[in-house]
């Protein structure tokens, strides 16, 4: 484990990615426990649309709220959505993919056809359909993103699981009479940790992207709560007058996604060089 961390930090994009992700995690944690420069919801009418200054590093918005505090809350909110949705998708997808690969036959057919149906929709559209049914909100965003990403995890797990199943060591285990649960956990899952780690990291990047998109459209986090997408949406009509309202949230979103993408790339290089071909 320690040697792996060393290798990750020795990898140039791994180092940068890990740094960004850790920084964002720290900010998200601070926001969750309520450590922000100002109260993100408190409005200071006199300070409306102030540019960046010593008091407000990233300026204030049209209600005089501190942009930096709101950004921190926004990061916390985005991370909450991203981690919960990817967690759910990874769990469900892994379970489906693993059992489909191992039991094969009818179960495999049912699961994979179901996933084909879900994959027949463009991702954002499937999320929109889901939100149509359940109604907008943070919790819906989590479920919608998880729903969209589950088939991808199912595929990511099923492919390698099938090839591991055909490996000699699984045959060896079968000649010993090892139980199915032993083979699934010790032989398959242990060898799936690497591709899953990579996929989880890349999924987090994608999830951040989708969450910001959904809240930009007004379908994710609802005001007065803060989120990166909402802040960007609010900036549209003010961008000429107050460009900091566009620039800071825009950079924040980009940098966060970049961090996870860089980390995911580095993990893929280190854990599974053969996966490069499948990279999207």
């Amino acid at each position, binding site marked *: 484990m320690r040697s792996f961390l060393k290798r990750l930090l020795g990898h140039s994009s791994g180092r940068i990615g890990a740094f960004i992700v850790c920084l964002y995690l720290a900010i998200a944690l601070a926001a969750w426990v309520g450590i922000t420069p100002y109260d993100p919801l408190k409005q200071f009418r006199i300070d409306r649309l102030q540019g960046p200054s010593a008091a407000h590093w990233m300026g204030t918005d049209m209600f005089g709220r501190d942009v930096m505090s709101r950004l921190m809350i926004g990061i916390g909110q985005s991370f909450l959505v991203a981690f919960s949705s990817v967690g759910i998708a990874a769990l469900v997808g892994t379970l489906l993919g693993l059992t489909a690969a191992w039991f094969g036959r009818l179960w495999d057919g049912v699961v994979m056809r179901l996933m084909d149906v879900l994959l027949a929709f463009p991702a954002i559209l499937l999320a929109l359909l889901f939100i149509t049914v359940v109604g907008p909100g943070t919790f819906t965003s989590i479920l919608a993103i998880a729903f969209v990403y589950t088939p991808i995890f199912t595929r990511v797990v099923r492919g390698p699981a099938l090839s591991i199943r055909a*490996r*000699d*060591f699984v*045959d*060896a*285990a*079968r*000649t*010993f*009479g*090892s*139980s199915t649960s*032993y083979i699934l956990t*010790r*032989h398959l899952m*242990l*060898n799936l*940790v690497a591709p899953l780690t990579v996929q989880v990291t890349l999924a987090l990047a994608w999830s951040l992207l989708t969450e910001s998109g959904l809240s930009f459209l007004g379908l994710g986090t609802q005001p007065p709560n803060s989120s990166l997408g909402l802040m960007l949406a609010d900036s549209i009509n003010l961008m000429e007058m107050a460009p900091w309202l566009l620039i800071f949230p825009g950079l924040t979103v980009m940098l966060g996604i970049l961090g996870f993408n860089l980390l995911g790339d580095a993990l893929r290089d280190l854990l599974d060089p053969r996966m490069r071909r499948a990279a999207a």
Partner: protein
Amino acid sequence: MTQLLSVQNLSVGFGRGDNIKPIIRDVSFTLDAGETLAIVGESGSGKSVTALSINRLIDYGGGRILDGRIDFAASNGRALDLATLQENQLERIRGSEIGMIFQEPMTSLNPVVTIGRQIEEVFRLQGKSGSEARTETLQALDRVRIADAARRLSYYPHQLSGGMLQRVMIAMALAASPRLLIADEPTTALDVSVQAQIMALLSELQRETGTGLIFITHDLGLVAGIADRVMVMQAGQVVEQGAADHILDHAQHPYTQHLLKAVPHFTNGNHVREDAPRLAPSAAKACLSVEGLTVRFPATAGLLRRSIGAIHAVESVDFDILPGETLAIVGESGSGKSTTARALLGLVNPTRGTFRADAQQATQSQKPMQMVFQNPYASLNPRLDVQSLLSEPVLAAGQRLTRDIQARMTSLLERVGLPSDSLTRYPHEFSGGQRQRLCIARALMLDPSILVLDEAVSALDVSVQARVLDLLIDLQKERNLAYLFVSHDMAVVERIAHRIAVLYGGQIVEIGEARSVLSNPQHAYTRKLIAAVPTIERRRERFELNTDAVPTLLRPAGYEPPPAEWSTLAQDHLVRIQPAANA
């Protein structure tokens, strides 16, 4: 003869900047026109790096020539130092002056281009016009004895067998009549009888064209058949070189002597084991008996997976094995030898037939049969440490990890010759031979009475192979183990087997005592197999060119082969009677 190639003090390294690691050091040799030089060595000896340095393909693998000269006499009479040549000049040398054949014919041809166009490309690079190139391509295919060449031109690589593809590679490498041909383990991935044909083709074409040949191999047996001179490499350095006969008969360097001793000498049954339990007056009763074992796989075709019959992978196989006895199952790929082993271990379901495996003592486990697989890199889960690997069969048998079991692990590891601190280490920390020892230890954890060894030493270097074979023989004597030894390698089989069963097209065609089968083979297929074995004793022998196709195993639904008729040759030697007309 004129000198074609002279390599002096060649050193090649890998890596960038200051971090260059030399892989071969100070290699020097010469080659005359029309001469064959064999470069022999085990994995990691630097023999392939040497070969790839000559036409500088090593540049693309991340290698760099650190020192030395590679003087080559080009066809226009000019002498070139290939070590310092620019890439665009090298492109004119490759193909037209130096041809090359690689180890894996299946992956060495471009999968999306027809073989015709791939050969044609060489002629076009020589500046030939379209129709001219096409005619010559056809001739080139004819020259490597590919029947029906005109039709094959439009085939893609995946539509041809490995042996065919290697012929295409040879046709391509010789297309521009190069003065030098480099063959890098050209037969390693092929079956023995196909290997014999490729060797025959190579030596015949070389005689015809007068090409100089550098033949890279790990197999000293092949060297004897083809080489004029031999160069032995170890760990990136040349340890000995000289005339082939001299090296093979009067090796000076200890490593060469060691290699020659380790390589299994095939002696037509003169050196089989003398401790056959079957010959003992009080022969025990068989611990594994197999009767009528048949494995068929349904074959389907088309969109609706319509059944078109069945693949008869294993057909009515009978044999038994006594405690302490080794039965070798030999055959080529597709003969059903591995399927037989897998059926006995329950990895595939037999269609018909019974088998009974007995534990010798009541104390032994419920699973008297264990298996060791061919590829030691694939048969150990890379994410588990040795302790978990060894405990798996124990846990699977429903036992607990007691102190006794721990003690057993340590003593078994010691017995198979692994360091005592192995328990907490992971498979990647071991070499191929050590991993195979680990697999053997794991198979012995439950104290079985029968070990199924599926090509268990085939993936190992000869010197490692020899030591693992010795270990297997010792373990057999100590524990009175019965071995079912599946192999394609006759020389290895001669060393370990008491009895031999020859499998062909899923059926046993000849079975009996090892000496009798090897020294007096009766079935045509057994003879062919034995004739194809390369050995040090057969010098510059002309391999016979044979283009028999492998029989299809696909039979129409409901097909039942006629019952086998056997003729008894000796007390323990049966041969299947071949139908008069070989339909």
